[in-house]
């Protein structure tokens, strides 16, 4: 079975005043159809840059420096801009944290969705509207005909994000990359969207890369988790396994930092220090300065090790429970 999305050795760099910064450093992952991959990390981990790199949305001074990005077997790197535009939207689509990145404020929802349909497929306006209506219904929007006639500002934040997701679904792409799509939403609305996304993956076979900082969301939504730190994937594995028994000290620390499950009022086990600055990374393991298990060995780049679909980038991984 071909993976819906297969990324090998992706490396993205930015040329900044502080020097050449590697935002994404040699990462590899793949997602099967109908599966949800949670890409977890804090600010500066490179999780969003990964999403933008896959869609060819990295502009100067940034550059995808190395790697392969295959969507349903088609290599995206090196595609001509026009071919890339055809892929984007029809085979792989993106949902942003702010739905207004996708929505045009001066067009009716129906008009812009129909336009998005007709960019990639020849069909009548009427058929395009029908397709837009179906897409809205797919993401659980009540009374889709009415929503088609609305302007984005007439919709609530949660409704706009659903419209953005529906727009991403118009061409039934094999892969959707969602970058913190529920972060700005209220928890009760987030719950609704997570439920729809799960159903969507199960029913349509769309592969989803869910980029987030929120471990709780990932643990209840994703099939597989990749934890990113300073541009690298430091741990990967099936969601339940990683959450239940993390092997990288960073993943452990991240899970422990969340208050739920700790006695109220007691100090939380915390990771010391700040999230790393990419321009100024230590040699070897980037987590070394904050890591309780660090030794001199960690001044060298840790190898990837693992089995049973799990992998950890660490010299001193925690034992499997």
């Amino acid at each position, binding site marked *: 079975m071909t993976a819906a999305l297969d990324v090998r050795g992706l490396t993205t760099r930015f040329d900044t005043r502080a020097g050449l910064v590697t935002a994404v450093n040699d990462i590899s992952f793949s997602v099967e159809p109908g599966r949800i991959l949670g890409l977890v990390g804090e600010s500066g981990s490179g999780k969003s840059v990964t999403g933008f790199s896959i869609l060819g949305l990295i502009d100067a001074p940034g550059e995808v420096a190395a790697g392969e990005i295959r969507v349903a077997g088609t290599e995206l790197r090196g595609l001509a801009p026009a071919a890339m535009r055809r892929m984007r939207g029809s085979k792989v689509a993106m949902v942003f944290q702010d739905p207004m990145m996708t929505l045009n404020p001066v067009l009716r929802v129906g008009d812009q969705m129909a336009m998005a349909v007709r960019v990639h497929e020849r069909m009548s306006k009427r058929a395009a509207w029908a397709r837009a209506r179906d897409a809205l219904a797919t993401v659980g929007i009540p009374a889709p005909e009415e929503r088609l006639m609305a302007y984005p500002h007439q919709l609530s934040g949660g409704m706009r994000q659903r419209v953005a997701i529906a727009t991403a679904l118009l061409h039934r792409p094999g892969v959707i990359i969602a970058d913190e799509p529920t972060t700005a939403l209220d928890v009760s609305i*987030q719950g*609704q969207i997570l439920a729809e996304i799960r159903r969507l993956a199960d029913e349509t076979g769309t592969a989803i890369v869910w980029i987030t900082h929120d471990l709780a969301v990932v643990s209840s939504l994703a099939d597989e988790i990749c934890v990113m730190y300073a541009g690298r994937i430091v741990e990967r594995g099936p969601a339940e396994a990683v959450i239940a028994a993390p092997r990288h000290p960073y993943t452990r620390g991240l899970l422990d930092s969340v208050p739920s499950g700790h006695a109220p009022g007691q100090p939380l086990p915390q990771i010391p220090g700040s*999230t790393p600055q990419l321009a100024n990374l230590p040699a070897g393991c980037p987590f070394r300065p904050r890591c309780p298990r660090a030794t001199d060995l960690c001044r060298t780049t840790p190898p990837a090790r693992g089995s049973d679909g799990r992998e950890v980038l660490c010299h001193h991984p925690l034992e499997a429970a």
Partner: protein
Amino acid sequence: MTEPLLKIEAVSKRFSRRPALAERLAGRITGRPARDETVHAVTDVTLEVARGEVLGVVGESGCGKSTLGRMVAGIHAPSEGRVTLAGQPVARDRGGHVTKLTPNVQMIHQDPFASLNPRMKVGETIAEGPRQHGLTPPAEIPAMVRALMAQVGLEGAYANRLPHQFSGGQRQRIAIARALAMRPDLLVLDEAVASLDVSIQAQVLNLFLQLRRDLGLTALFISHDLSVVRHVCDRVAIMYLGRLVELAPAEELYAAPKHPYTAALFASVPEIGRGRRAFHPIEGEIPSPLDPPPGCPFHPRCPMAGPRCRTEVPALGPAGPGRAVACHLEHGGTGAEVAA
């Protein structure tokens, strides 16, 4: 029982916006006259905070928790009701111009990238309040700044730097130091850890817990994050669409929520370790505070709503020791029972 430090008495806040001239003209031409818009941000909220207590205020967007916090911090004045600190009003409103009357309430904002003056050295940001109010003799100000920075876990030598040289977590520590410099009786924390990375959030929560132990802080802790509130608060107030719907000691609330909204909110939050599961999100959308529904604000989304809920606003009434709920289910029934 001692007199509570903070008293919020039957407070309401409305924001009115008159349409601009151009909008009124456009309305006249299109035949859809533009009307004054009134946002009912907070409606009839009564709360008390005892000295040394941390009260959590929880709710989703449009619930009025931030407006409530800003009234306590003296940035807004209530449209109705009173906010008093140790018996004295916090702010005065003269013709729409609000003047804060006390330095004894200090606020910590959500976004540490916006809450520090980008062109002022952080030491000066910390020092200017106490200097202005004569809390610290001028000669002792540098020492005070160093001591405060140490207290929040920052090197005193960083006092000469500008905010953009600090990370988000460090900035939030600076904002805390600025608030503590005024030696306030009450802190208002408005989503103070919401914009921080998870690992940094834990550090700042620990700092808050430590300061609370050391200084006996009293605080209003506003947040949408249920697990954070549970961790640091003694009592929790749940707000929905401008109204207080439930008030209870934290542990009891989390163990057994009584308001259907509170229960639904808890059920819809994903939690680590519960595994992948079917979600139980609350149906429907949050109504607009421009046009709140009649009766109980939650009735359009409430699975238990009856006829009475659609017409009569439930009052906040006692529901066990130290607890209060605004729900007809607890107080006389929804009217559905009669029909059935």
